[in-house]
């Protein structure tokens, strides 16, 4: 199984509404959106063999939990597996954005994922609208 194959990613995240598609030139695009109750930890993205991204809205802040599903992989912009992000009211007139990178040292080429998480609080209903997207591609080393 290739980690860039959209079929297993689509199947793995189907219960959560995750969409997976191939990219022109090779690569995988993942996206998911949810209206999430306060204090609920939800899975937003699952790339089999690569990573999982969970999020918990907590009042007007977010807790992001990243998980590597590949040995030796590393996250950027999220140095721990549970990171808190404030998105206080001033920032919620537009969606708050948190961005991450994920690198898995696979053969024959490393795989790089660029992940964006956007959130908007619906205070009247006590819900947070989360949108997560990932673009996953092989990083082909220049052999020249």
């Amino acid at each position, binding site marked *: 199984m290739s980690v860039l194959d959209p079929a297993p990613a689509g199947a793995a995240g189907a219960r959560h509404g995750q969409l997976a598609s191939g990219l022109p030139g090779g690569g995988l695009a993942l996206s998911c959106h949810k209206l999430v*109750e306060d204090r609920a930890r939800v899975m937003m993205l699952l790339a089999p063999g690569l990573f999982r991204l969970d999020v918990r809205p*907590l009042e007007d802040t977010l807790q992001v939990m990243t998980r590597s599903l590949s040995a030796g992989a590393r996250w950027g912009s999220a140095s721990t597996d549970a990171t808190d992000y404030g998105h206080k009211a001033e920032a919620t007139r537009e969606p708050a954005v948190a961005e991450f990178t994920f690198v898995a040292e696979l053969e024959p080429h490393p795989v790089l994922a660029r992940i964006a998480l956007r959130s908007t609080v619906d*205070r009247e*209903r*006590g819900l947070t609208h989360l949108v997560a997207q990932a673009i996953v591609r092989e990083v082909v080393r220049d052999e020249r």
Partner: protein
Amino acid sequence: MLRLAVTLPADAAADAVDALVPLLPRGVHEHDLGDGRVEVSFFEHADALPTRDALHAAAGADGWTEEEVPDDPLERRHGRGWVVGDRLRVRSPHDPPGDGTVLELVIEAAAGAFGTGAHPTTRMCLELLLDLEPGGPFADLGCGAGVLAIAAARLGWEPVLAVDHEPASVAATRRNAERNGVAVEALELDLAAVAPPPAPTLAANVPLAVHAALGAALAPAVIHVIASGFVDSEREAVVGGYAGFRPVARLGAGWQAVLLERAT
């Protein structure tokens, strides 16, 4: 809508939640019961529930309880409230009352105002508040739903002022003060533009930028500041912004709270 819950030893809860989350699109709630156990719960419609076998395999435990709850998240019982410092319990109107052994605050989360007791910064501020000798004027800056102001009023500070720049928070504070039978004056105020009130005891559970504005504008009458709303990497900047104050207590690992005292 159904609410299913199971109680697990605290050291097993993290792995259980990690395994349950992929099964439950609406998410998983964790509630530390404070006695070495964690209640793990979720909400789902009956026709979308995972099988009991799947829940057992993920959570490693049986004994799930099941109850009907309202569809509206703001109308649901979420747990049993939060006990702070063995002396204070904060709960929503939809949680069951306690046994009366500790002071109890009932805080509604209507309109999503911050500070219902669910956030660790709120609970740490309450813990620091409990360590102070009550008395004299108190101001809750960035009051959200008013829990710190209401706690201060119940503990013996008087008069108590609560300010927030969001009208919904000011309205929620007024409703919650009335619900708890305490006198709290709640006002709409932009702390980034207006100097904070000169109460000897202040609580400020606010973002970094607001702390910077507050620290530069405190009146000489201010003796103690309970400061929170920031993470570890921001603590030094927050504390450094309160010139003439020194930290005398600190709580938290990720989210932080400090008690600042005016240096003599």
